[in-house]
């Protein structure tokens, strides 16, 4: 499958909306033929999987990915992979947080009938890793999340939180006291 962004690793997309303008680097490269990028824009016009759209993209201020697992080594390796993927796609990583592990313990009686003093304890440990990315467009977020989720290891769960940036609604753009009629001041006679 062709990779329109020209990154180092193969990416498979189901469908994605791409920005109409694809900005090429500046004028000092005008004469040179940039085979990769020029070929990509040509291919994207005929590629049925890439759809172009005129509507403005939703912008995300923050994309927070929380990854949970039983094995810390697996989470560490996944963190390396996710940070590398973000860097390759040009996404800025705000921070990589590692919240402390939670342990769920319960105590059972060891024997079937009596022997209250002899018990058995079991525990389940959950390790966490939180990756925060900042300032993404919805198509970038879709691409990154799809790649990262397809390569999620077994036994690892992911939760994604997106923080959208929206325009201030019209009715609160101007302060209220500018629009209210002037109230006449009454003199207080003591």
């Amino acid at each position, binding site marked *: 499958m062709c990779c329109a962004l020209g990154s180092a690793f193969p990416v498979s997309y189901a469908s994605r909306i791409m920005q109409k303008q694809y900005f090429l680097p500046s004028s000092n490269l005008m004469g040179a033929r940039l085979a990769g990028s020029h070929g990509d824009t040509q291919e994207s016009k005929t590629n049925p999987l890439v759809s172009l759209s005129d509507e403005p993209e939703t912008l995300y201020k923050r994309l927070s990915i929380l990854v949970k697992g039983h094995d810390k080594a697996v989470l560490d390796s996944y963190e390396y992979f996710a940070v590398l993927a973000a860097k390759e796609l040009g996404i800025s990583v705000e921070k990589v947080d590692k919240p402390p592990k939670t342990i769920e313990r319960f105590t059972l009686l060891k024997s079937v009938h009596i022997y209250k003093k002899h018990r058995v304890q079991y525990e389940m440990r959950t390790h966490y890793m939180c990756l925060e990315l900042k300032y993404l467009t919805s198509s970038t977020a879709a691409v990154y999340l799809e790649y990262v989720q397809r390569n999620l290891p077994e*036994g690892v*769960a992911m939760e994604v939180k997106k923080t959208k940036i929206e325009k201030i609604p019209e009715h609160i753009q101007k302060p209220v006291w500018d629009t209210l009629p002037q109230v006449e001041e009454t003199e207080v006679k003591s």
Partner: protein
Amino acid sequence: MAAAARGLRGLPRALSVPSAARQLHCSAVCLKARAARVRAGKGDKAVTYEQAHAPHHIGHRKGWLSLHTGNLRGEAGAAQRALEDAFLRRFLAGTFPGLLADEAVLKRRGNLLVVCALLGRALPPHKLYFLLGYAETLLGTFYKCPVRLELQTVPARVPYKYL
């Protein structure tokens, strides 16, 4: 109790109350102190690395045999996965009788179920391929999800120590 008995004496046999015995049903005992531990013997029993280590070594000296998200905090479905795992291991033990060199590793990636098993070399390859296809199709139809069996043959079971 006595009054009821007197009243019942007149009734024909077919309408008499069945014997008033109480029954107790309990599930099989989980011997927690002996689970997944091979007891020390005379030194003639060959035991693999997996069998030699007790369950409290999981995460330290052992890995996990079944990888899914059911037991993580805030995730559901642990009981269903445990039941599926139990059935899968019995199914594999029955489909490849006497061939399994070690416990099968079950991995769940999304909807896909991957079963990784080590087998001995008692059967010729064409029979193994048939059993592979049979197991994949049957399990896929049964669990309504894609099932992939990744088999590898080893010459013999590798003993870690003798107990």
